[in-house]
C-alpha cells in the first residue's frame, strides 16, 4: 500500500521504492523531522495521534489528486504516529514524475494538503508543559464546521 500510518520508524528507502518507475526521471522526497526549536521554544518530544482509517483514506485522496494533476506521477506517503524524539522522521512523501519540475511541485502540494485535510495531530512536550498543536497553516477557519469545498473529497 502506497499510503500508510506507521507505529514504527519509517524507512525512507521503502517509501521511495514504491514510486520507482521506468518512465520517471525524477523522484523527490519530503522528510518531515522533529525540530528541537519552534518559535524559540525547546521541544523535548512529540506525540502524534491519528484517526487512522480516515487518515489513510485522505492520504490516498491526496495521491489521487496529484496523479490527476501531474500526469505520469506516482505517489507514496507514510506518516508516523506515537512518541517521536528530536530528528525522528514524522512523515515521508515520495513522488516520481517523468520531469523534475513536476516532482518538486507535486511533492510540495502533498505536504500542504496533509496539513489541511489529514486527521493527524501532534502534541508538543516542552520542559514546562504540553499542548495539542492546532492548524499550523493558520490560514483556515471552518465557520461551517467543515473544510471549504475545494478541501473535500469530490
Amino acid at each position: 500500500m502506497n499510503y500508510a500510518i506507521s507505529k514504527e520508524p519509517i524507512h525512507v528507502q521503502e517509501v521511495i521504492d514504491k514510486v520507482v518507475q521506468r518512465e520517471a526521471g525524477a523522484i523527490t522526497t519530503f522528510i518531515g523531522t522533529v525540530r528541537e526549536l519552534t518559535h524559540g521554544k525547546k521541544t523535548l518530544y512529540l506525540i502524534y495521534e491519528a484517526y487512522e482509517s480516515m487518515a489513510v483514506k485522505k492520504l490516498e485522496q491526496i495521491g489521487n489528486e496529484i496523479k490527476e494533476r501531474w500526469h505520469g506521477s506516482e505517489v507514496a506517503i507514510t506518516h508516523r504516529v506515537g512518541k517521536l524524539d528530536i530528528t525522528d522522521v514524522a512523515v515521508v512523501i515520495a513522488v516520481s514524475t517523468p520531469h523534475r519540475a513536476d516532482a518538486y511541485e507535486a511533492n510540495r502540494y502533498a505536504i500542504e494538503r496533509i496539513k489541511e485535510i489529514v486527521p493527524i495531530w501532534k502534541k508538543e512536550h516542552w520542559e514546562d508543559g504540553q499542548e495539542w498543536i492546532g492548524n499550523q497553516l493558520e490560514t483556515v477557519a471552518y465557520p461551517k464546521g467543515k473544510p471549504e469545498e475545494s478541501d473535500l473529497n469530490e
Partner: protein
Amino acid sequence: MNKILFFAHLRDAVGEESIMMDAKGKTIADLKQMVLETYKSVNLENVMTAINEEFASDEDIIHEGNEIAFIPPVSGG
C-alpha cells in the same frame, strides 16, 4: 446507535476516545449541541466533523450506525 470519536484536545476534555450515543435522524449541528451540553469543558470551535470517515457539514443528517468523528484542526506533517 452511533459511535462518536474524539481526538487531540477533545479527547482530553471528554476523557474518552469514543462514546456510544443514539444520534439517528439528528444533524451534525444537533449532535454538537448535545456534546456541548454533556461535556461543559469541550470547545468545538474550528472543529470539523466526519461521518464514516468523510468530512461532513453541520446540516448533514446522521443515520443509524454512522460513525461520527470530531476533528480539531489537524497538525500532521
